[in-house]
């Protein structure tokens, strides 16, 4: 019902008054900026909350990096800032684990799931498929506010006495289930669990909305095979989320029961501090199965939108159609399906039946095939292109580089035999920070640079973007590349200090180097934040289609209106990648241009299942040939 009313509102409204009349919305501050139901505003809300959370999580990472680089040094400033969490200027070991845990949680869920999917699905789905808004704008609004609430609860845990959750972002019980096992497993863990329940609610509300909008509200002519790859990626991501997140709710709720109501779903035969506990019959491995049943699809929820965004940006800025559009879609579908049957590769050494480990190893290495296809297709798209290096393009190329580097180390970790010695070492840290951390963040940044004109009607400064890219790109490699070798030497992750092990102390100089590289990359983000905020207010006014792009969002006016297009929604006639088509005047043909207007560039391939069109095309060619002969 709400869909219809919004559409009616939009159409009626703009027909009646024209879109330059600003007083007409009767929007109060509350309905325009806070409880907005407009997908473009909700996208901005997600983006700005996501960026804020990213900055917070980045600062947390710098704090624990300082501890790793200078394990014996006191920093009085830390005590001033963190109080009891850093007595005498040195991080408390428990708080170190809290930092690691919350850094991971915020980055994976709040930044790269909500910040990435939330922002770009909301912004682009209606604009690229040609809809006036989401299927349910109200659910969309709820989705943001659940997310906001989850963020607040997660951050609030820093202000309670015992500090935030500290069992790692994977919160394996019994560590997370026994409030006495560590400080962070007390109230902090309760807040973590509550926060995640709200987060999952937000994610589901969003995901259902994305799926139904894409399936039901595409404009005339926009069949599935004419959708940009961004939409395909968001669509499949949303499906993954809708199917996988509920399993985490189940896992989390059972954990809440174990913690608070004395059940034993995950607990059995426990003796804590010499005291025998009454739990019997549960299995800690059960939680790991439930967690990774979400957790593994989750890493694809993180990376797929980034891949979709980069497909779009690489095609646009290479001025070339994306190579193998169908293969790109099928590999996304392949990844989506396979990602549900690979979760066990996180559990090779947990005591799970080794035969099962072998099966998961096979499925895991199969999923590398579609990922490889995607990489090769990106390379083929760049080949013989006419590449325009906008900051967005730089970040998209950086994404591909990270995706290759991090993806290849996945072949080591996916191999159960090798995982025995690499599990829970820095090799794993290096692997996932490259392939899903850096790559997905680069996808997000690429998206921000590319669609900033669409979001705010202003342009960002290119040269600051260049500076931002190079510092971040080089910094990320300097941080994560050496970590592989620490892992190969058997240095475990989540260690507060390596001072207790003589064999690990030789890595101290590397740790110091990594920390300074991390600080450099973190400071480079100031260039981005300044550029972002400054450009919102004082940036150059954006033209309607600044990148000469084909997709539909650039046919909507720069000034935002509720309903996106004044008058009728444009019809779509072609796929979104007609760049540099031979015979065309310009090097791009927007999706909304009918084939009848581009007779000189049409190819037979454009008229599949279109007899009449093909006939017209042949006639035109014949006529043209005659003309040439006459000449």
């Amino acid at each position: 019902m709400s869909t219809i009313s919004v559409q009616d509102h939009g159409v009626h409204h703009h027909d009646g008054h024209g879109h330059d009349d600003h007083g007409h919305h009767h929007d109060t501050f509350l309905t325009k900026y806070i409880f907005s139901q407009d997908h473009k505003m909700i996208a901005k809300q997600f983006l700005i909350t996501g960026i804020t959370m990213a900055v917070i999580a980045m600062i947390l990472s710098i704090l624990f990096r300082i501890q790793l680089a200078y394990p014996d040094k006191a920093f009085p400033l830390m005590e001033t800032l963190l109080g009891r969490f850093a007595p005498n200027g040195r991080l408390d070991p428990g708080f170190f684990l809290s930092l690691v845990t919350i850094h991971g949680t915020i980055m994976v869920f709040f930044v790269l799931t909500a910040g990435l999917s939330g922002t770009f699905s909301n912004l682009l789905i209606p604009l690229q498929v040609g809809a006036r808004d989401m299927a349910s704008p109200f659910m969309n609004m709820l989705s943001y506010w659940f997310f906001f609430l989850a963020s607040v609860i997660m951050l609030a845990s820093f202000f309670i006495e015992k500090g935030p959750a500290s069992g790692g972002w994977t919160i394996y019980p019994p560590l997370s289930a026994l409030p006495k096992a560590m400080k962070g497993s007390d109230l902090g863990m309760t807040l973590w669990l509550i926060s995640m329940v709200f987060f999952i609610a937000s994610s589901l509300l969003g995901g259902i909305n994305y799926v139904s909008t894409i399936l039901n509200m595409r404009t005339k002519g926009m069949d599935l095979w004419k959708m940009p790859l961004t939409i395909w990626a968001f669509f499949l991501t949303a499906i993954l989320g809708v199917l996988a997140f509920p399993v985490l709710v189940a896992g989390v709720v059972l954990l809440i029961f174990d913690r608070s109501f004395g059940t034993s779903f995950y607990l059995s035969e426990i003796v804590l501090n010499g005291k025998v506990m009454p739990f019997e019959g549960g299995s800690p491995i059960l939680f790991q199965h439930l967690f990774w049943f979400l957790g593994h699809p989750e890493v694809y929820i993180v990376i797929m939108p980034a891949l979709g965004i980069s497909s779009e940006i690489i095609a646009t800025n290479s001025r070339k159609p994306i190579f193998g559009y169908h293969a790109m879609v099928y590999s996304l579908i392949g990844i989506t399906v396979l990602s549900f049957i690979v979760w066990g590769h996180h559990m090779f050494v947990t005591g799970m039946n080794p035969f099962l480990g072998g099966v998961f190893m096979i499925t895991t290495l199969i999923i590398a095939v579609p990922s490889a296809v995607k990489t090769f297709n990106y390379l083929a798209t760049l080949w013989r292109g006419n590449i325009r290096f906008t900051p967005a393009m730089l970040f998209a190329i950086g994404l591909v580089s990270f995706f290759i580097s991090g993806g290849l180390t996945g072949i080591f970790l996916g191999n159960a035999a090798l995982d025995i010695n690499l599990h829970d070492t820095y090799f794993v840290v290096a692997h996932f920070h490259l392939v899903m951390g850096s790559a997905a963040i680069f996808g997000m940044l690429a998206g921000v640079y590319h669609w900033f004109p669409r979001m705010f009607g202003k342009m960002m400064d290119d040269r600051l973007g260049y500076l931002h890219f190079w510092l971040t790109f080089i910094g990320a490699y300097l941080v994560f590349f050496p970590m592989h070798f620490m892992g190969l030497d058997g240095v475990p992750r989540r260690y507060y200090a390596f001072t207790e092990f003589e064999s690990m102390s030789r890595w101290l100089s590397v740790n110091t180097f990594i920390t300074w590289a991390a600080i450099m990359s973190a400071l480079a983000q100031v260039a981005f934040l300044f550029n972002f905020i400054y450009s919102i207010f004082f940036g150059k006014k954006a033209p309607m289609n600044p990148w000469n792009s084909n997709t539909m969002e650039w046919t909507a006016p720069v000034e935002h209106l509720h309903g996106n297009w004044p008058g009728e929604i444009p019809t779509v006639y072609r796929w979104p990648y007609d760049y540099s088509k031979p015979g065309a005047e310009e090097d791009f043909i927007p999706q909304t241009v009918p084939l009848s207007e581009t007779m000189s560039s049409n190819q037979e391939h454009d008229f599949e299942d279109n007899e009449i069109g093909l006939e017209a095309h042949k006639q035109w060619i014949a006529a043209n040939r005659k003309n040439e002969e006459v000449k």
Partner: protein
Amino acid sequence: MAFKNLINSKKLTVLFATLLLGGNQLLMAAAAPAATTEVSEEAQAAMWTGVGYYVLMFLLVCVGVAIVGRIVKVYDLTNQLQGKTATNWNNIMAIGFAVFLVIGMFGAFWSFIVQGSMNLPESASVHGVKTDNMFNITFGITVIVFIITQILLFGFSYFYRGRKDRRAYFYPHNNTIEKVWTIIPAIVLTVLVVFGFFTWRTITNSVDVKGDINIDVTGHQFAWELRYPGADQKLGKKHYKLVGGSNNLGVDFKDKNSFDDMRADTLVIPVGRTIRLNIIAQDVIHSVYMPHFRLQINAVPGLPTYFKFEPTITTAQMKAKTNDAKFEYLLYCSKICGDGHYNMKKIVKVVTPTEYNNWLLQQKPYLNDALKSELKVAGILPNDGAANQVALNN
């Protein structure tokens, strides 16, 4: 409009200010108990000077960047005024990628040589040799792919940088090429899967590995406990409900096999014999990680796990091989288990069988005097002799 109204609203400003102040006070209150270690004002002042110094440095860098930015812009504009072409950022970025490729490849190579040589020494177990072979095969394949794809990525970026007078080549798809680069990775991965699968099966499916020596490894926050079988070569049963007093592993003394079990501080194992580690945790999940033996398995409460392996190189031999007199094999925890996770290690000593037998003779029995008397009180062990009774009566 609405935004302006909000900014102008005094009520909201006041509310915001109160919140800020209140928030600050809360924070301060939280920090107060920790600050009992009275930091002198001078130290505080020195600290803030230090902080100020770094902030100032950063601001200077920012100003520097801004000035350079301006200069570049002015230079650009004057060039344009004089009719020359503007700075071609597109070319600069393309050259940047080419330079990055060269320096990056060099850096990666340097890393492989220098940091790669800080890798673990050769495997000290039989199965570990297979793991290392598997690793080397995988490494060879992935490094080739890594180098080729990165060269293509940055090379294409450089060679196909945009020019006004050129047009990209319209090339939407080629089914043959796509099939080729689907099938080749599929074949390579199949090879890796098959090799990996068999390596994994030989390591984990260790039914025919005898397990000559059974050793109990129990993890708890934040230490490992070791229990060796006595002359009977059999470990006594244990049950978590029996944990208490001196019996911190919960050994069941109704089982006669447990009478001669021994405790040890170091995991000493003889070279060339098959070892079976029986692993369990008492409180939370820990992980037995012995990287020199390419061995890792989680210690899970309520779920006993095990790992069978055969050490091949004694500690003394490894000291000579690594040329490090201080070298020790280690067992440490690799699964986050609480505040002390980073300090949960046991030294592992691989010795010759004779040294092992001598060492075994010196170990203390698990059933020590304190435990004996506790068990007698509890009525689990029979009271023998009046002497004890007298002692108890006292």
